[in-house]
């Protein structure tokens, strides 16, 4: 199975995603520079975390116009599994591949800590190996993770079951204290209507090995591998 990790100028979690795919899971992985126009036959595409283009203008705003995004968009439209992590989630929202936007954290602080999220949906390629209600311990590291969308969009996300991850406490309860950034409806991650594009603020790729404090992020990678194995490989 081949993973592509897109590298924008300023991406800094690209190696973490590559390491998780290649060394932890043992799959093929390749970096794809943002000026490339092909995804090199990848079957899974990851937009990694970091500070693409220095977060200039708005987080993810400039990256959406990178040449490689045409191929990423085509890959997503064709149903390919596409995961946006942290800055990658912000890029997906700016690119309109996911609805809404990510604003400055409500308390204006950069949060770098382990938090809990509850898996809300298990019918996406990145969550099918999880169980609904499962609590994952994942790290976050962001200053702008405060998810907002207009009321109609929020209603659509909820009624279509597209909120994939929600901030919660260790027991899986959604509380105000467990929400690190003020996201509406405690949204930590969502998927698109076709469910093949998932974006989340926490970093599953940094939670795949015990020395890192959690292996709970592995389920996202295991899920997408299982999803492709069962559906027959889809090639970009």
């Amino acid at each position, binding site marked *: 199975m081949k993973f592509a990790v897109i590298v924008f100028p300023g991406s800094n979690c690209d190696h973490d995603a590559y390491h998780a795919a290649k060394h932890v899971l043992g799959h093929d992985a390749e970096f794809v520079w943002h000026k490339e126009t092909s995804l090199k036959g990848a079957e899974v595409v990851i937009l990694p975390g970091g500070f693409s283009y220095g977060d200039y203008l708005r987080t993810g*705003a400039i990256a959406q116009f990178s040449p490689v995004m045409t191929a990423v968009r085509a890959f997503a439209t064709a149903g390919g599994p596409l995961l946006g992590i942290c800055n990658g989630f912000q890029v997906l929202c700016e690119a309109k591949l996911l609805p809404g936007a990510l604003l400055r954290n409500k308390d*204006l602080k950069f949060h770098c800590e382990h938090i809990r999220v509850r898996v809300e949906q298990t019918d996406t390629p990145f969550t099918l190996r999880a169980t609904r209600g499962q609590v994952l311990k994942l790290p976050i590291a962001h200053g702008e993770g405060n998810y907002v969308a207009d009321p109609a969009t929020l209603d659509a996300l909820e009624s279509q079951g597209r909120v994939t991850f929600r901030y919660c406490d260790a027991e899986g309860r959604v509380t105000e204290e467990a929400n690190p950034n003020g996201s509406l409806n405690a949204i930590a991650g969502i998927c698109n209507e076709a469910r093949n594009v998932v974006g989340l603020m926490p970093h599953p790729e940094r939670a795949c090995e015990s020395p890192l404090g959690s292996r709970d992020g592995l389920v996202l990678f295991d899920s997408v591998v299982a999803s492709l194995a069962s559906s027959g490989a889809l090639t970009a």
Partner: protein
Amino acid sequence: MKARVFVTLKPSVFDPQGRTIAEALHSMGYAGVGDVRQGKYFELEVDAGSPEKARALASEVADRVLANPVIESYRIEIE
């Protein structure tokens, strides 16, 4: 020609930076200042035949790049 583009968060979107600035001003004793909304200001040098065309160009650029219509609105001045 110069186009000035002012981008601000929509009124419905909470602006934590503006709120923090307002609270600082209040703690300094500026009781006359109410709410504060923080925004962005862009100056574009535009090559367009008329003020109308300059406005249309600035508007297109603002829609596509300078503002995110999900959270922000903008206004344009042409000089």
